[in-house]
């Protein structure tokens, strides 16, 4: 079985079998990553755009690096561009929801809501580190930040999530 890196190198030649295999290997991970980063909106567009960039920029891919790192770098950049776009309609979940709103919705907190309430930078780290099961080094490389920043963002994310799931502490603080 060919490695991801070998398959990615074949994309330069327009090899459709290589693309099909890479799609098969990464479809679940990439789709779920995009879903978590965007709260499920525009996943189809972002998924297609990610692979389009992979093919268009295949000749820039450095085969000495892991393909997964390159793929998620592209996906992260696309998500950041997407987040900068003005939302098409008023968002149900603001980045900084009012305290009253938090109190109201505590009972219905689920994973998607928790993630939606994290700042983008912290959410990126949580999704890559925990859901994608990547090491801190890989996350640092994908996000192009030092490993220490990965750790600190993770800590901030956990503290913030803890506040959300423990309303009494939030009120007390």
């Amino acid at each position, binding site marked *: 079985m060919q490695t991801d890196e070998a398959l990615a190198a074949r994309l*330069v030649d327009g090899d459709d079998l290589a693309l099909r295999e890479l799609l098969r290997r990464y479809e679940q991970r990439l*789709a779920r990553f995009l879903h978590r980063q965007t709260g499920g909106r525009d996943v189809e567009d972002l998924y297609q755009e990610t692979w389009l960039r992979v*093919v268009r920029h295949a000749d820039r891919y450095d085969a000495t690096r892991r393909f997964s790192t390159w793929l998620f770098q592209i996906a992260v950049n696309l998500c950041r561009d997407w987040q900068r776009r003005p939302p098409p309609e008023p968002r149900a979940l603001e980045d900084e929801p009012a305290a009253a709103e938090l109190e109201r919705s505590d009972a219905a907190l689920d994973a998607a809501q928790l993630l939606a309430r994290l700042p983008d930078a912290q959410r990126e780290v949580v999704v890559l580190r925990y859901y994608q099961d990547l090491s801190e080094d890989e996350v640092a490389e994908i996000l192009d930040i030092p490993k220490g920043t990965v750790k600190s963002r993770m*800590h901030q994310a956990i503290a913030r999530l803890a506040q959300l799931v423990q309303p009494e502490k939030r009120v007390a603080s």
Partner: protein
Amino acid sequence: MTSRLDNAFDEHARECGECRETAAPVAALSALLGSDTAQIDAERLSRLAFARVAPALQERAGALFWRRLTRVLIAALVPLPLVIGVDVWMLGWLYEAVAAWLPVSVAAYLVACYGASLLLLISGTYAAIPLLLARPVIEPEPEPAGA
């Protein structure tokens, strides 16, 4: 998924003194984040993505074909003047040799026929180059490690 989440959170909690001191609800967070059960039809996404990416892929394959064709044609055209020169010299020698034995018109006819067949052969050889390049290359499957 949940076990990975647990391990990752535990890993952070072990390393982070502050989280230990404040007794961050690591288990509760793990349970909540691990309960993410979003249903995603990733196969459908891949089909749509492939359909959208296919033209870019064909563009790449086409560009590669023309690059290869140009390289091969250049390589094949380099010796062509020599081949034609040798053929012309050989036809002239053949005409002289045949004309010494047969009438000139018959010798000219025979040499012209031979020249035409040579021309056809050379043209066919050069015409085959793009056809051979366009043929899909099937790479052999690597043998299993135990074989």
